[in-house]
């Protein structure tokens, strides 16, 4: 046991000290945080320039003043100007582009053109589209000659979001959010995939390194091959856990720092607000609702989301994640170790890698499909089959899985996991001492039956 800990320590320390590890560990969360904070900023600001847009209507003034100015665009309604004249000179006149509305607009919605030298940002287009749409709808309604139309319009304006409530067997009601469950399923499935794959492959590379540098025979004259294999697998798992913990911590820290520094420069409420508005649709922005009125429903929405997130079975998720991570990782890592032991260099691993990666990729695909349809039979079976269950089951759990299914899946996983480690250890034991021979599956099968 003491020797295994010496091996674990070496595997851990030698990897954690590597420059590539340190760089990855520090850079990845910075990039993540930058993505989390800057992406909405970019989406909101687009290119950040203030734009002046000329609005020209042909022979009518139906849309005069319809498109409201926004923070980064001003809409100048020009009367008595011909489009063709302005086309040549609009840039010199300080306009970003020309919005041309032909009179057939009410009947043919394509009769609208935005002429500009550059590709206009999506936010701008959405704003124009939704403003005009509302106005056209209003005008069409007007033609029905309804009394008090404006009042009625204000009255019927609604925001719709579906609230999903799930009733379990005991009859207790839980408010759930499919969005949250989907997001969680995706993150958990992907995280499992990455952990198993990245660190499993590292185990394989470590084994190959020991074999090609011929250090392995020196080691196994001191320790049992199984100890060496397990020490390596555990050591690398710890490296993975360390990296993830640092990532989580650093990401949160950077997000907080970025939020307090960058965002405070501008008015925070305005930003969060326009971020969410841009992220949803532009509809709310127009139609007379004032900006301050927007904030409270969004805050409510947010706190509801938070409640929903807290309603997830976190205890179960964490227990299952740890269980499936450990068994799944050990299962695949030991197979990777066996493959590493059977080859002389990394290029030879190809033929063995394919059958191993197929179940992992399949699992990821099923996990993504699970988010659309959590109760499908494919999802069910893949969450039972041990090669795919770590990833697929984690994707299913946020949607609710009966306990008996989890239990069956775990038992199957445990049995398979032990079987795989046992077989991998046998192949490994023979493989690490074999040089120069091209190994085949048949050859590996033979190694399985060699005695001690």
């Amino acid at each position, binding site marked *: 046991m003491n020797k295994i800990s*010496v*091996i674990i320590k070496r595997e851990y320390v030698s990897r954690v000290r590597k420059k590539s590890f340190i760089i990855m560990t520090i850079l990845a969360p910075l990039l993540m945080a930058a993505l989390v904070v800057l992406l909405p900023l970019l989406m909101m600001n687009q290119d950040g320039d203030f734009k002046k847009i000329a609005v020209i209507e042909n022979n009518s003034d139906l849309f005069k003043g319809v498109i409201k100015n926004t923070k980064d665009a001003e809409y100048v309604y020009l009367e008595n100007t011909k489009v063709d004249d302005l086309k040549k000179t609009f840039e010199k006149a300080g306009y970003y582009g020309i919005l041309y509305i032909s009179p057939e607009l009410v009947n043919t919605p394509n009769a609208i053109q935005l002429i500009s030298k550059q590709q206009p940002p999506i936010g701008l287009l959405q704003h124009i589209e939704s403003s005009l749409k509302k106005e056209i709808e209003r005008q069409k309604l007007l033609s029905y000659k309804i009394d008090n139309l404006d009042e009625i319009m204000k009255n019927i304006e609604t925001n719709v979001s579906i609230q999903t409530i799930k009733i379990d067997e005991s009859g207790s009601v839980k408010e759930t959010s499919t969005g949250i469950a989907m997001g969680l399923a995706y993150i958990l499935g992907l995280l499992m995939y990455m952990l198993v794959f990245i660190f499993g492959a590292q185990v394989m590379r470590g084994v190959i390194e020991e074999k090609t*540098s011929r250090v392995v025979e020196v080691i196994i004259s001191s320790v049992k091959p199984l100890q060496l294999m397990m020490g390596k697998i555990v050591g690398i798992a710890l490296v993975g856990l360390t990296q993830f913990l640092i990532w989580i911590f650093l990401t949160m820290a950077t997000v907080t720092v970025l939020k307090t520094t960058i965002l405070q420069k501008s008015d925070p409420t305005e930003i969060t607000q326009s971020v969410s508005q841009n992220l949803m649709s532009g509809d709310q922005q127009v139609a007379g609702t004032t900006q301050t009125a927007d904030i409270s429903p969004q805050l409510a929405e947010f706190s509801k989301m938070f409640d929903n997130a807290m309603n997830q079975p976190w205890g179960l998720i964490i227990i299952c994640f740890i269980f499936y991570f450990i068994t799944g990782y050990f299962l695949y890592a030991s197979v990777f170790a066996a493959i590493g032991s059977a080859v002389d260099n990394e290029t030879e691993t190809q033929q063995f890698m394919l059958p191993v990666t197929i179940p992992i990729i399949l699992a990821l695909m099923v996990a993504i499909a699970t988010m659309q349809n959590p109760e499908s039979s494919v999802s069910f079976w893949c969450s039972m089959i041990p090669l795919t269950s770590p990833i697929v089951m984690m994707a299913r759990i946020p949607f609710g899985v009966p306990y008996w299914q989890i239990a069956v899946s775990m038992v199957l996983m445990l049995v398979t996991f032990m079987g795989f480690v046992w077989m991998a250890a046998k192949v490994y034991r023979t493989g690490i001492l074999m040089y120069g021979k091209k190994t085949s599956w048949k050859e590996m099968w033979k190694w399985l039956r060699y005695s001690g």
Partner: protein
Amino acid sequence: MALFEAKNVTKQYGNQLALDNVSISVPEQCIYGLLGPNGAGKTTLIRIINQITGPDSGELFLNGKKLMPDDVQVIGYLPEERGLYKKMKIGEQALYFAQLKGLSRAEAMKRLKYWFNKLDIIDWWGKKVEELSKGMQQKVQFIITVLHEPKLLIFDEPFTGFDPLNTNIVKNEILFLRERGATIIFSTHNMESVEELCDNITLIDKAKTILEGSVDEIRSQWAANEYDLVFDGDVKIEGNGQYNILNQHKDNNKSIIRMRMTGNINTNDILQTVMKSGNIISFNPALPSMNEIFIRVIEARN
């Protein structure tokens, strides 16, 4: 008393027999040569002694007791296929291997300092393996092998990669370790070093033991009743009924003659006959070199 014994060891890989009923007995403080052509089964036997693989049948004894898994602590093994972690500093690396052999960190550190100084590589302590010459890497490996002061040392081709100077240093270290009580199993193709170092040998070919015993005994057994006679100056003699001349040649103003006796003959009689031809400088039984014996034995089997 035998420090290590293997009795009737058999090992099979698939259909291939790697060791067929092989027995060796290594006396204490002996340097024991394990010889044989490539693929004879030497490495398999060494791996079995190190408990890297187990035998299909047969028994192994260390100090008269059955070999146990914990005995790896008292065995030191320098494999033929040896290497170090390329990216790891050699000092740390040596510490790691010492700890795997059960030494405490502090104790390992103390001994490593001693050995690194002794073999003159202390300045390289913090260097990575890839920055070292092959000879220096070999020295580190030698230190790793002997650091835990094992009772039984197994060297598989220990001199490959060393220049003559370093070969000599390592040779002397091996003899020094023997003096301090270690028993050494030594596998090599270099027959000169066998003659020089080994007390006993076993020759394995195609999974079977075909020759074993002390080096001196084997050499005189294989001596074909031949003698080397050296005269001062240019001397030629001819064979008679008692001996045949196999060849004679001149070297540095000496005449060297190889002769074979025809029967069990008193050497004094021969000397009395040949001394009439000139001044005799030396008269020695011509022992075959281990190299000759090796080749003759293996070729006879084919």
